């Protein structure tokens, strides 16, 4: 099937305004009759729930944490982009649009990216009105900094806690609606199925994580804003509870999974220290504004203390390879470069999987106090984890799985191929192409939640009769039985291995074979290993405790079971995409000096995979990408 993104036609500068005008509206008096289910209360879901509550819809908001304030958006450190051009340094909506398209290695839709750049400025206005304490200059004006992959200063930030502050803004707006009674909050719930009636999304089935009860809820539309899936690698910068479960359940009900092989490996994370490790910690990319990446030129020097290695014996490899972007080269490029140095046996620290990020010259230039003001909390966090003082010696960093550019397929209205199912934020595939630029995920989450879905969902609901299907419909009963059946199966295996041992093993398979460098052989190997591990999982898993109660093991087991299915689609996508683009690097497709080589003739499309049943190969559908405002070009940061 050839998919249609339903993008508006005509000049791109006018596309969103024109589309907004052409969309149908719901009569204000009718809005409260429509029930909207929103799963996820991160930036995308939280903003959407608050805004739709304000508009008068009858909203229910679900999240697995104990409070809607704790979604993983909270962990974002660095900042959020907007095309305000406050610094008069040549920024504009067009430049943000252009940078995002190019940064994504020409694998995103132009119209969606344009809209994102356009509403970026509204986001900052909105957050300031909510009392988000962005950093300020002494003049009282908002402060900006430049951030990975951009040559202009367009990033707004709140100390090292931008995500937290933006999320609290959305959370507080949501709290206001909860008090007003327009939004009903359902924390500590996990969506375990999408209910589809006659091909249309009509509700969800979920588990109450406190009582273990399986419940259902009907909705005239269902919105998923459930975040990303890089915990498929086990060790990642994501929170422990982040999973593909909601998206995967939707996929099993017919929603297409788009570009699942596009995953982002972030260059600046604290290297793994041992087998006990449960997650990897990101050090904000803003650190690369002042830090310089290097490894010893000679293998023999790797064991030496960094201070004992003379400047001329250091290889500042990013500055060497990419003179014009240097340490600010985009993430995929910086990550691969770090891996290359370590593969060349010049890495540092435990297992020699690490590179230095050095502040010495910045401290000499602006003083330790300025560096402390800029990055103090990050240096503290680094010290807590590694017991090393980065003011005195360089940090050690290594790339780690961080973000998923792929996700459920959506059209320009953020609606999936299942009518009534909308997908926002990291959970959809829409704007970042094959690589995401720094500080643009927060922007996308809030754009989708505050400024896109409130319009586009109205356009859909205007065609629906409110409350036409409720949870007395037989499909709901069927869904509960399925969910209950799967839980009973998990509880009854009674094997020998714990959930986390399976998750670790899956993570290893994915990191070694479907990680930063992928080859036909490694991908085929993964496609052999994943089903084997899945088979063992269903025979040898041990889940303790009771299903009718809080049970963390059972929650994890369900998530790992879904990762074990999803991993196969992700690998299949990586195998089919015989080109290198952005975060997807196929070793067979590189230039002589090791840069990614795209194949626009064959692969300038979105790959959307349809689930065909357990053990069956998924079916590929394509949405061709057209570039009318930016010329397809080789992405160079030299």
């Amino acid at each position, binding site marked *: 099937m050839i998919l249609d993104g339903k993008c508006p036609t005509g000049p791109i500068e006018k596309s969103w305004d024109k589309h907004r005008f052409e969309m149908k509206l719901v009569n204000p008096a009718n809005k409260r009759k429509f029930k909207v289910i929103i799963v996820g209360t991160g930036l995308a879901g939280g903003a959407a729930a*608050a*805004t739709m509550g304000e508009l008068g819809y009858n909203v229910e908001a679900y999240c697995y*944490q*104990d*409070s809607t*304030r*704790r979604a*993983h958006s*909270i*962990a974002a450190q660095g900042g959020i982009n907007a095309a*305000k051009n*406050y610094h008069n340094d040549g920024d504009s909506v067009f430049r943000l649009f252009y940078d995002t398209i190019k940064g994504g290695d020409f694998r995103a839709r132009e119209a969606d990216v344009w809209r994102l750049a356009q509403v970026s400025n509204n986001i900052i*206005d*909105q957050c300031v*009105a*909510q*009392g988000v*304490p*962005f950093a*300020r*200059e*002494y003049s*009282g*004006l*908002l402060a900006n900094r430049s951030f990975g992959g951009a040559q202009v200063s367009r990033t707004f930030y*709140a*100390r090292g*806690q931008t995500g*937290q*502050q933006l999320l609290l803004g959305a*959370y*507080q*707006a949501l*709290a*206001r609606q909860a*008090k007003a009674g327009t939004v009903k*909050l359902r*924390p500590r719930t996990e969506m375990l199925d999408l209910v589809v009636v006659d091909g249309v999304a009509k509700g969800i089935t979920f588990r109450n994580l*406190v009582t273990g009860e399986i419940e259902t809820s009907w909705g005239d539309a269902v919105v998923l804003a459930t975040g990303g899936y890089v915990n498929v690698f086990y060790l990642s910068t994501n*929170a422990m*509870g982040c999973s593909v479960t909601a998206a995967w359940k939707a996929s099993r009900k017919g929603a297409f999974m788009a570009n699942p092989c596009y995953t982002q490996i972030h260059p600046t994370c604290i290297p793994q*220290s*041992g087998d*006990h490790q*449960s*997650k990897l*910690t*990101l050090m904000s990319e803003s650190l690369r504004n002042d830090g310089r990446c290097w490894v010893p030129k000679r293998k023999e020097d790797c064991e030496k203390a960094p201070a004992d290695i003379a400047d001329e014996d250091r290889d500042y490899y990013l500055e060497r390879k990419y003179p014009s972007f240097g340490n600010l080269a985009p993430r995929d490029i910086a990550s691969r470069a770090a891996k290359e140095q370590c593969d060349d046996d010049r890495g540092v620290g435990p297992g020699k999987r690490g590179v230095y990020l050095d502040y010495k010259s910045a401290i000499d230039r602006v003083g330790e106090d300025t560096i402390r003001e800029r990055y103090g909390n990050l240096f503290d*966090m680094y010290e*807590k*984890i590694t*017991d090393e003082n980065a003011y005195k010696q360089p940090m050690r960093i290594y790339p780690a799985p961080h973000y998923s550019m792929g996700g459920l397929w959506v059209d320009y209205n953020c609606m999936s191929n299942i009518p009534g199912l909308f997908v926002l934020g990291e959970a959809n595939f829409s704007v970042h192409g094959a690589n995401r630029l720094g500080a643009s995920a927060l922007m996308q989450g809030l754009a989708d939640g505050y400024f896109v879905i*409130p319009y586009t969902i109205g356009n859909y609901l205007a065609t629906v009769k409110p409350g036409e299907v409720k949870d007395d419909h037989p499909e709901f009963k069927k869904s509960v039985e399925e969910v209950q059946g799967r839980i009973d199966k998990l509880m009854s295996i009674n094997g020998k291995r714990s959930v*986390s041992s399976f998750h670790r093993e899956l993570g290893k398979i994915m990191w070694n074979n479907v990680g930063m460098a992928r080859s036909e052989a490694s991908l085929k190997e993964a496609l052999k290993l994943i089903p084997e591990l899945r088979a063992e999982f269903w025979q040898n898993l*041990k889940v*303790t*405790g009771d299903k009718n*109660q*809080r049970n*963390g093991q059972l929650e994890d087991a369900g998530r790992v079971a879904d990762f074990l299915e999803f991993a196969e689609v992700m690998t299949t996508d990586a195998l089919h995409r015989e080109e290198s683009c952005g975060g997807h690097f196929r070793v067979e497709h590189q230039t002589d000096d090791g840069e990614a080589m795209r194949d626009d003739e064959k692969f300038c499309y979105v790959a959307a995979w349809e689930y065909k049943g357990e053990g069956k190969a998924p079916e590929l559908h394509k949405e061709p990408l057209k570039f009318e405002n930016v010329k397809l070009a080789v992405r160079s940061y030299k």
Partner: protein
Amino acid sequence: MNLTLYVWRQNGPEDKGKLEQYEAKNVSPDSSFLEMLDEVNQELIEHGVEPIEFDNDCREGICGTCGCVVNGIPHGPQEKTTACQLHMRQFKDGDSLTLEPWRAKAFPVIKDLAVDRTALDKIIQAGGYTSAYTGEVGEANQTLISKPDADYAMDAAECIGCGACVAACPNGSAMLFTSAKVAQLAVLPQGQIEAAERVKNMTEAMLNAGFGNCTNHYECQAACPKGVSVKFIAKLNREYIKALPK
């Protein structure tokens, strides 16, 4: 290193609960406190014992999900550190640790170390926001905010809503938590218009949710992983007096 744990086990809100003894063996000093618990849990699972339930998510000290009382101190001995960021090198081989949930009237135990903190959300719902509708709200740089005010607001906004301050307080008061939000919004022009209503409603909601009152013990500040200062409680009190009918 090897440690002995005494862990509060409580099988649901109605259960009485008791301390159980476990051994944590071969713990790496580089592992975090929660990773140490993961390993203890792995062993329990292997022996068919239900693992210790505790809340956690980000493991980066920012989401505010984790937390338990370690040897009487919420989040454990290291200053300004959440339980997930606490590393085992802070302890010695042979140490004994007692792990208990947050204890406060407003935080019923769900299971083992996990408690229900919905009461904190209720306080925010009572007024911890500005009533800005999504839409045309005016250009961001039209309202200047001095850097000291912005920094003050940010210091208050550091609160991650973990509830350690409540667990530390002899009265089970949520005053530090409440004051942090009141102060953040009161110092910003965007929040000033609703300041009087906010401080009244939030304080009332705090008391209604079962939290105690503040009698200046300052245990909260000592326990707070984000270094939220009791100066915000003084600010709340000033705001409260300003809001009283004249």
